């Protein structure tokens, strides 16, 4: 840019020289124009002196601004255009000198005319302009506009050059007392005119509270500087604010001690101190080149003191007499690129610990203003499935430093380390965004559970107190999955042990051997078993015995019968009828009783007949037994029968018993 500036200045010189050889018969115009006719005493005013169609212009004198301070200028611009009018080529050219002025007092002031001389010795005078100056400022908003290169009516690169030129001029004017000195002194100037400053919005903060730090480059000279070392911000978590694209940084203007600086914002960061004590913001460093304008006379073709310069010899005397060309214009065309190293001053910040008073137990270093929400992605799932539980902390503050709140899950649900995603959304005035903590919860056992409320605490530095937020608890239902055969969760959401048994001890008893291994138990088996065996043995003996008795009676039956028959025979001889028949019937009955093993008491004619039939007794014998019984019974009650009948009955009885003895 500067190079281009240099070029056009040279070309202007050449033009002046070249056009000086020709005579142009065109109307010369020299006019003064002001940007406003009425201004405030604090406002600035631009005055343009425009010379048209003057060939061989030698010099333009600087007017004597008695009532004004020259803030900037003179700035020169030159234009020429060639037009063809009819068959004639018409070339017109103009040169404009501009000054930026600030009035010294109020009232009606006059901007004095300027004078110009051409090679032919003609002097041109511009008009004077009267303006009115009032108190205060009339155009506070317009003021910076006039200096804003982008809004400048000239616009484009040329305007930017103007801006820099103006800047350089201004600096030169201020540095004028040293201007005749050597280059080395200019280095000090450079650092007066080019430096980095750090601004923090507070120097006392709590741990975790946001501090905004801005690194600004102040410049009054053209420069090309880049940050070489960013400050190492030990003890802070930093988050840079968004700075508009560097390509179109609009420098701001700032006036310090009456000097106008262009201010570039290099870096703006939110700092969150992480430790207590006095922390230092290390300096930021920048390196680059500054273009300084010096009084390097050998380079000045019009510098009057260098008589040996041929170029100067040609025009020297003229130039020397002109303050503008000599001092303000041509002598400043010399510049130098000097390397610069800039360093900001370190800033100390005192970090206080957060108050212990009222600090919640689950405080997780969050400082700022936040809201918290929690949500599970489903309410019903199987044990094969997993659940995503998302906790979203949104707000402004030290988001990245917040510890994830602890999730107290009931027994039967398990989770792993959560995934934490920090999203910074706002970077304009305060760092805001959200911290999303995602827990993956997998159920181990089916059942009904409740994800308990999550508490989240933070310190609000504005209100200077702690706040605790709570999410809503969430109920979930876990069903049995395909790969699950564990028992259903015995106790839903058991987070602590059951209380102790406190009732008084029941009957105190020491642990004993199990019943199965005690002798008493087995003796309980032995007792019935032995009883059973005894019973069995007894029954067997009993059976044996009864069997023997039957046999005996059987054997004795014949004998008894014979004995009774013998008695009957005796009674027959004595002719005792009643006793005889009784003896006969007794003999047969008793014999049958013994033989058939039927007790006498139950013995009757019917059951004797049945039993005898079972034993296959011939029927004629049966009839004869029956007849004998009948004979005995009738004889007992009918006393008519004689001795012959008694003999027959006796014979029958003997026959029956002998016959029965054979078959039974």
């Amino acid at each position, binding site marked *: 840019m500067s190079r281009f500036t240099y070029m056009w200045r040279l070309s202007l010189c050449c033009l002046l020289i070249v056009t000086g050889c020709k005579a142009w018969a065109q109307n010369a115009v020299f006019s003064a124009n002001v940007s406003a006719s009425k201004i405030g005493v604090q406002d600035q005013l631009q005055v343009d002196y425009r010379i048209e169609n003057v060939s061989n212009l030698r010099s333009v004198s600087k007017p004597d601004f008695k009532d004004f301070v020259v803030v900037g200028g003179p700035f020169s611009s030159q234009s020429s255009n060639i037009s063809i009018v009819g068959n004639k080529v018409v070339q017109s050219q103009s040169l404009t000198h501009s000054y930026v002025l600030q009035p010294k007092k109020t009232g009606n002031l006059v901007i004095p005319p300027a004078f110009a001389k051409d090679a032919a010795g003609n002097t041109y005078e511009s008009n004077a302009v009267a303006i009115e100056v009032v108190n205060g400022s009339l155009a506070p908003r317009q003021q910076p506009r006039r200096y804003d290169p982008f809004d400048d009516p000239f616009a484009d690169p040329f305007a930017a050059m103007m801006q820099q030129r103006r800047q350089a001029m201004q600096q030169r004017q201020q540095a004028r007392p040293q201007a005749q000195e050597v280059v080395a002194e200019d280095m000090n100037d450079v650092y007066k005119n080019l430096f980095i400053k750090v601004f923090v919005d507070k120097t006392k903060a709590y741990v975790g509270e946001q501090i905004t730090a801005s690194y600004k480059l102040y410049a009054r000279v053209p420069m090309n500087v880049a940050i070489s070392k960013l400050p190492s911000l030990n003890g802070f978590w930093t988050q840079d604010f968004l700075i508009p694209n560097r390509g179109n940084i609009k420098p701001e203007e700032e006036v310090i001690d009456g000097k106008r600086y262009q201010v570039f914002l290099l870096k703006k960061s939110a700092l969150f101190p992480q430790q207590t004590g006095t922390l230092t913001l290390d300096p930021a460093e920048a390196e680059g080149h500054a273009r300084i304008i010096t009084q390097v006379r050998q380079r000045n073709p019009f510098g009057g003191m260098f008589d040996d310069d041929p170029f100067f010899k040609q025009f020297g005397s003229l130039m020397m007499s002109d303050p503008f060309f000599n001092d303000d214009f041509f002598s400043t065309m010399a510049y130098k690129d000097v390397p610069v190293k800039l360093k900001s001053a370190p800033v100390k910040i005192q970090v206080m610990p957060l108050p212990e008073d009222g600090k919640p137990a689950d405080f997780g270093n969050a400082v700022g203003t936040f809201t918290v929400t929690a949500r599970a992605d489903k309410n019903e799932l199987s044990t094969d499935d997993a659940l995503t539980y998302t906790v979203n902390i949104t707000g402004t503050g030290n988001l990245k430093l917040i510890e994830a709140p602890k999730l107290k899950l009931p027994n039967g649900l398990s989770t792993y380390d959560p995934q934490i995603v920090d999203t910074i959304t706002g970077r304009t005035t305060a760092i805001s965004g959200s911290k999303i903590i995602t827990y993956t919860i997998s159920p181990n056992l089916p059942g009904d559970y409740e994800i308990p409320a999550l508490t989240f605490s933070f310190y609000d530095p504005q209100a200077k107190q702690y706040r605790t937020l709570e999410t809503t608890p969430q109920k979930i239902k876990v069903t049995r999955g395909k790969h699950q055969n564990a028992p259903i969760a015995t106790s839903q959401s058991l987070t602590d042990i059951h209380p102790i048994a406190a009732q008084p*001890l029941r009957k105190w008893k020491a642990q004993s051997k*199990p019943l199965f291994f005690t002798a008493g138990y087995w003796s309980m088996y032995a007792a019935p078993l032995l009883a059973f065996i005894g019973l069995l043995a007894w029954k067997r003996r009993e059976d044996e015995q009864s069997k023997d008795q039957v046999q005996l009676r059987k054997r004795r039956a014949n004998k008894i019968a014979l004995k009774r028959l013998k008695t009957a025979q005796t009674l027959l001889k004595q002719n005792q009828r009643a006793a005889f028949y009784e003896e006969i019937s007794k003999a047969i009955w008793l014999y049958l009783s013994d033989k058939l093993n039927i007790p006498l008491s139950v013995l009757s004619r019917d059951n004797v007949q049945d039993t005898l039939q079972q034993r296959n007794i011939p029927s004629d014998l049966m009839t004869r037994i029956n007849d004998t019984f009948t004979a005995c019974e009738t004889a007992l009650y009918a006393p008519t029968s004689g001795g012959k009948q008694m003999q027959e009955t006796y014979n029958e009885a003997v026959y029956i018993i002998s016959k029965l003895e054979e078959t039974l």
Partner: protein
Amino acid sequence: MNGVKCTGLALCTGVMLLTAPLYADIPYNAWWQKANKFYSEQAYDSAAFYYEKLAAQQPEGVEVYYNLGNTYYRLNRIGPAVLNYERALKIDPGHKAANDNLELTKSRIANRIQQPEDIFFVAWWKSITASNLATMWSVLSLVLFIFLLVLIWLRKTNFMSCFPFALTPATLFLFILTILFAYAASGRKVAKNRAVVMEQDAPLFQGTKTSGTPILIPEGTVLSIEAEENDRVQVRLPDGRNGWMRINTLERI
């Protein structure tokens, strides 16, 4: 005078010391109430002291072991807590609170060795032969035995016609089954083959008994003892791995 007093006192003390174990008139309920009071006052150390005194008497009830387990849980001593819950459950496997608390305690074991779930019939067998059912099975088998004898007697004396023929063999089968259950359940009750690891990161040597890189077993792991040799025992971990451990790192349930 003084000497006599001293002698008397010594004598008295001696007599008391002698009689104490003999008559064992230990103030169980006093200790019990004291321990419970300490527990409610969160003086868990003192509570544990009295519960331990009670537990040393090997009571039949589960309460002492259960409360002692809770106390150790509060003292954050996983090993003893698991041991006492396991002892309570050995007496009463169906004790719900003890089961829950044991599960909770075990869930706090770091790097816990998970026990795979039993196959259904193993689980059935375990629940049928639970140690608290030992007496029931024993009595039932005795009853069945007597019933069997009665049946046989009736059959001998020709009264069988009133009963179905298969009754006797069925009763015999049931009797054999119940006596088997009674044996298994009683065996479980007296078994001393389960143990709890009482030290954090107790070393378990695989292969040889002492050398090699040990596997570190977390405190509170319940394992079964397979064999014993001097001060070493062969154990099986819940996940089925085998190895040798020092016996003094374990406590039998």
